[in-house]
């Protein structure tokens, strides 16, 4: 009998535990261990001392924000930021789910595409009064119906890292046009040096490389309104981009991009470059430290991408993460205080500290460009930093389809099919 009673109790406990485990945490359960501390309920946020905890989500690790978090701790002492890192692959899914359940982070780092989506769904707080402190180039990609919904962070950019020693030792001058760039690559090939290391197992390298060429040739000239037309369903790649991609395809026909590269990932390509086996490597400031760690002796510099005409060159890039406020947050006013602190020269300096190389969109905030980007400075100074898919609106995620289709293009698929497939992906996203 005793055994039966124990069994019954155990089974009941299991059921109760399951039900409690699946239940929602109530305020009464949020009592802290320090019973003597003064407690005051503000919304549903956890309180420790006088501070209110605000949740901030981002797809980059905490060390890329450490200086900013330290600064915010002193600038807004009544707020404690709980940093929530979510891997980029799952970021949109996690944040979308949290927002739809009205349990999203108080401060959300948004890409232009996700900011537009969340603004349309009414998830974000309008930030016009803070947006005025930033240049239009930074806020335009975070605007919807003439309202600003996110504040641009430090810009990101990608160009062509090159090994200065390899260029100087072999008497090779830096190119100024696309054709000169192809000639430089051929010279390296003749010397038995791989001109460009590329991890084409990732869909990103050819996406950025080809789009930089189209930006230089078309999107910055006759095609300035292409992005806005595309997001309205009035423009498509097939029939428009063909001549530019055909010219860019010399990167493939001249053996600079090869099919073998489809079996190499980003890290392996970076290793090839860092160890001197390749003369160039396309990437951005986020890889600079890793390259220098692998080869501290390397004389590193970055050049921009080029079009067929001589110019300052072009970099692929744009506003980095946009800082937005969850409209359902119980602490909107405190979140605004945090973004106000961010929208100062000091706040931008703290953000720049772990993102050196990029520039701030805050009016009047300027930072020195590290020497490693000196050959890209003319493109940066000319404002030739452009990310075409930022203008694609809700079709922005199709840039991944673009990269994937270009892998197939390298592997033998014809150009018309490639561009048509990308257009179909864009139309599908626009139809939502």
């Amino acid at each position, binding site marked *: 009998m005793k055994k*039966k009673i124990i*069994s*019954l109790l155990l*089974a*009941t406990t*299991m*059921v109760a535990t*399951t039900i409690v485990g*699946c239940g929602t945490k109530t305020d009464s359960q949020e009592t802290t261990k320090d019973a003597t501390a003064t407690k005051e309920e503000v919304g549903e946020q956890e309180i420790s001392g006088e501070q209110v905890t605000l949740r901030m989500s981002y797809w980059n690790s905490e060390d890329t924000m450490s200086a900013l978090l330290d600064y915010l701790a002193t600038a807004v002492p009544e707020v404690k930021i709980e940093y929530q890192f979510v891997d980029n*692959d799952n970021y*949109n*899914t996690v944040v*979308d789910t949290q927002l*739809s359940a009205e349990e999203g982070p108080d401060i959300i780092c948004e890409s232009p595409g996700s900011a537009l*989506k969340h603004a*349309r*769904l009414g998830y974000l707080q309008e930030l016009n009064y803070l947006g005025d402190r930033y240049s239009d180039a930074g806020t335009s990609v975070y605007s919807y119906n003439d309202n600003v919904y996110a504040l641009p962070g430090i810009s990101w950019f990608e160009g062509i890292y090159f090994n200065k020693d390899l260029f100087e030792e072999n008497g090779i001058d830096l190119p100024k046009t696309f054709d000169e760039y192809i000639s430089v690559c051929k010279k390296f090939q003749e010397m038995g040096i791989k001109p460009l290391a590329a991890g*084409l*197992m990732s*869909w990103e390298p050819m996406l950025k490389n080809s789009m930089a060429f189209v930006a230089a040739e078309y999107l910055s000239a006759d095609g300035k309104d292409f992005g806005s037309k595309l997001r309205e369903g009035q423009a498509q790649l097939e029939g428009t981009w063909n001549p530019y991609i055909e010219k860019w395809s010399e990167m493939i026909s001249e053996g600079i991009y090869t*099919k*073998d*590269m*489809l*079996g*190499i*990932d980003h890290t*392996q*390509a970076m*290793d*090839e470059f860092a160890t001197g*086996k390749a003369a160039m490597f396309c990437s951005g400031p986020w890889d600079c430290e890793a390259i220098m760690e692998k080869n501290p002796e390397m004389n590193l510099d970055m050049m921009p991408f080029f079009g067929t005409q001589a110019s300052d060159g072009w970099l692929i890039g744009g506003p980095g993460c946009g800082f937005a406020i969850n409209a359902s947050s119980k602490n909107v006013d405190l979140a605004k205080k945090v973004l106000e602190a961010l929208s100062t020269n000091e706040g931008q300096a703290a953000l720049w500290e772990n993102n050196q190389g990029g520039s701030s969109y805050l009016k009047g905030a300027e930072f020195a460009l590290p020497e490693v980007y000196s050959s890209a400075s003319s493109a940066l100074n000319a404002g030739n930093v452009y990310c075409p898919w930022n203008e694609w609106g*809700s079709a922005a*995620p199709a840039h991944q389809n673009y990269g*994937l*289709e270009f*892998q*197939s293009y*390298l*592997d*033998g*698929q014809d150009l018309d099919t490639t561009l048509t497939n990308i257009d179909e992906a864009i139309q*599908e*996203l626009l139809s*939502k």
Partner: protein
Amino acid sequence: MNKVNKNRIGIYFWIFIAPAIVIYFTFSILPFLYTFFYSFTDYTDMNPVNLSWVGLENYVTVMKNSLMRVGIQNSLIYAILLTGFQVILGLPLAVLLDQKLKTQNLLRAIFFFPAVFSSLIIGYLWKYILSSAESGLINSLIVSMGFSTVNFFSSKFALYSIIFTQIWQWTGWAMVIFLANLQSVPLELMEAAQLDGAGSIKRFFSITLPLMCPSVKIVVVTGLIGGMKVFDAIYSMTGGGPGNATQTVMTIMMDKGISDGFYSVGAAFGVCFFVVVLILSAVVNKLMSKWSEAIG
């Protein structure tokens, strides 16, 4: 047993089984019913609340979408080849390691060892081994012999390279299942056959193989269903690329159904996939039952 005792057993039965039923219903049955419901709506990330009934529209989209057909085709190729090779290689390996060898236990451990690791870990490992960079293990050997590098992850070969790595990982697991079955084969039968003059090959095909039916059934059914659901090996090695060459049902469901926010189309694809797996399982079960009856 009197009526009172029977009732008590009934009460205890339901009390003990209740947690399992609650968990199974909450995390399996309910999500499936929701998936089925959403497959008839216009649920997307842009329309998460005011859902409308769209009938079979999402199923038509699935049928028309060439990428989804590629996903089902790749999943089928993966499942059939992996399961086939698991049986073809695992069975003789089990018979070999059922012999009285000095290194019997060591060899069994070595062959089973890869199955201990996560497919993700194995995937990342093989990605480096098969890399077409000169630092890739196999390609560095090829280059050192004077040949040019081979791209194992091209559109043509990528899927088969992944299948090869998974055969390497899971054949040992199939071997263990076969070994357990082999040890239940009565020795008297073997001895009698030997006395009747049957050679080892004759004994294998006439006695061992028919009696292995239960373990082959387990390996084939679990292998096919698991193979159709492959995600981690693909994700770690190619991510579905190059292009869409190694996309499978699960990678497409992740990309289209979740990342791109086409929840209702993803749900319809999930229901279609459920039907495909159901039919496949029924066919395999029927074939296995016929085999059992034939040898029974």
